[in-house]
């Protein structure tokens, strides 16, 4: 069972531009995923304001009983977050890697329009590989 359950990418306005499920756990339909993205976008922003520490950049990790949610926000406001099995390691570096794949296979695609849903075959292919490699790295422990 893959450690990463799903990946979400939200544009800087809070719109869901990418959603992929990798396991059988935690799957949801399109409407729910759109709602989730919008909710997370707001929570993330509010957390920055609630923080007692100045210069807080928002929620990076949310730990629940049945999952961990790791979030990375670029300085351009795009958010990448994965829902994974509790205690999964290396999610930060996976998110960083996914960010780089985004800068290659999405942003360099002339047929991709900024802020719109991502439909880039090369992005899907490389992403799946990255997530699978990550799983093998974990199993190897």
């Amino acid at each position, binding site marked *: 069972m893959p450690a990463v359950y799903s990946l979400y990418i939200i544009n800087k306005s809070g719109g869901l531009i990418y959603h992929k499920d990798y396991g059988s756990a935690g799957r949801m339909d399109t409407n729910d995923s759109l709602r989730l993205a919008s909710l997370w976008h707001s929570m993330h922003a509010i957390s920055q304001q609630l923080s007692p520490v100045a210069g807080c950049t928002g929620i990076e990790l949310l730990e629940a009983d049945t999952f961990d949610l790791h979030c990375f926000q670029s300085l351009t406001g795009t958010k990448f977050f994965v829902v994974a099995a509790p205690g999964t390691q290396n999610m930060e570096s996976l998110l960083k890697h996914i960010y780089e794949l985004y800068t*290659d296979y999405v942003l360099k695609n002339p047929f991709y329009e900024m802020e719109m849903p991502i439909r880039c075959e090369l992005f899907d292919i490389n992403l799946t590989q990255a997530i699978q490699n990550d799983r093998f790295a974990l199993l190897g422990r």
Partner: protein
Amino acid sequence: MIGVGKTKQYANVLDRPISKGKQEVSLSAFAFLFSELVQYNQTQVDNIAELERRLEDAGYAVGARVLELLCHREKGNRRETRLLGILSFVHSTVWKVLFGKVADSLEKGTEHEDEYMISEKELLVNRFISVPKDMGTFNCGAFVAGIVRGVLDGAGFPAVVTAHFVPVDGQQRPRTTILIKFAEEVLVREARLG
């Protein structure tokens, strides 16, 4: 040499020494520029065939200049007069300079005497590009087809050159073939030269 420290100022650009061709930029810089070339041309056309033609035309001028540059620098101004010679020049020298490697393969067409194919597992220009399904068989490699046509035309081997995706058994991604169809006069001359 261009690219090292301050460049010496020459009164006339023609007096400057020709570059050794060793300066590099990141692949990303090229990819962003190429992506913008495609995007700009998309706004100028109504259909895919026109987009292909505009990309080919853009490549043509590059090809013509590459020919001049390489003939002078790599070949000491020697001119290719034979078909296989010019094809080999394109497949090896031109490809190496522009894309960092020789092309994967050069083949003669089996169905037509005037057709040759240069194939690549993946063209450099397509490295980060995913063509949407609704654009059918469109290939941004049309730009490269244009470059090849520019080289061939400038060298005296007029041809129609097009880029095609070719599915490969057992592979998720198709490879790209640059199809070269030489003009009648080229074959006639080639036959005469024996």
